[in-house]
C-alpha cells in the first residue's frame, strides 16, 4: 500500500511539472493567440486612398497579403495584371524574411 502511494506520488510529481511546462509553452504559440482573434477588416481597404498607396511599401504589401483572399473573392476592380504585380511583391517580401509564422 505504502509502495503504491509512493509510486502515485512520484508519477504526480513528474507529470504535473511536465504538464505545467507544456501548457506555458503552448500559451505563447501564435496559434493559441489566433483563437478568438479578430479577422482583418479588408472591407476598409476599399475606402483607402489608392493614390497615396505605394505597392513597394512593406505596410502596403503586408495589407495586400492579409487581404489577398478577400480581394480575389470580391473581384477587385483593379486590372488583374496589377494584382499580379502586387502578389509578386508580397512573394518577394516573404522570401526576404528570415522567419515567417
Amino acid at each position, binding site marked *: 500500500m505504502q509502495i503504491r502511494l509512493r509510486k502515485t506520488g512520484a508519477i504526480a510529481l513528474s507529470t504535473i511539472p511536465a504538464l505545467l511546462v507544456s501548457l*506555458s*509553452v503552448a*500559451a*505563447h504559440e*501564435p*496559434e493559441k*493567440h*489566433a*483563437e*478568438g*482573434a*479578430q*479577422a*482583418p*477588416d*479588408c472591407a*476598409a*481597404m476599399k*475606402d*483607402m486612398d489608392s493614390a497615396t498607396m505605394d505597392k513597394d511599401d*512593406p*505596410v502596403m*504589401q*503586408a*495589407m495586400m*497579403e*492579409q*487581404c489577398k483572399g478577400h480581394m480575389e473573392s470580391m473581384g477587385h476592380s483593379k486590372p488583374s495584371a496589377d494584382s499580379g504585380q502586387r502578389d509578386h511583391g*508580397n512573394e518577394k*517580401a*516573404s522570401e*526576404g*524574411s*528570415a*522567419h*515567417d*509564422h
Partner: protein
Amino acid sequence: MPIRKLLACVRCLAVAGLVLILAGAAYVYLGLYPIGADTPHNAATYWLLESVRERSVARAASGIAVPGDLDASARLLAGGADYNDMCAGCHLEPGVKESDFTLGLYPAPPNLAEAHDVHGDPETRDQRRFWIIKHGIKASGMPAWGPGHDDERIWNMVAFLKRLPDLTPQQYQIVTARKDSAAH
C-alpha cells in the same frame, strides 16, 4: 598637529557616514517611502532609476547584431499580431490615447504608436528595443518576453515597432489581425 587635524576630520566623516547610513536604514525599515504607483518618485529617485535604466540598457544592447531585413512585410505581419496580443494594452495603438494600464502603471508605459523615440540612431533604437523586449525592465511592469519567445519572433516585433507610428487605425487593424483566426 596637521595629522591630529586630519584624524579628527576622518573621525567626523566616519560619524557623519554612519549617521547617514542609520538614517537611511530607519527610513527604509519604518516604511516611510511612498511605494504606491499613484505617488510619483521624488526628483532624486526618478533621476537615479532612470539613469540606471538607460545606462544599463545602452551598455547591454550595444553589441547586438540587427538583422538586415527588418523592413520585410512578413516580419510586419508576424510582429504586428504579437504586438496586438501582448503589447497594445500598455503601449497603445493608433487612435487610442490611454488605457487602464497607461493610467495606472508607474512609470507610465511609453505610447509606441506615436513617433517619439529619440534614443540615438536607428540601429541603436533597434538594439535597444530588442533588448528591452527580450529582457524586460525590473519593477516597471515590462516583462521579459525572451523566456517564451525566440529571437526571430522578438525581431519581428522590433520590425513592427519601426512602422507602428506611421499606421492609421484601419491599417493597424488589418496588419495586426491574425489571418488564421476563427472569425475570418
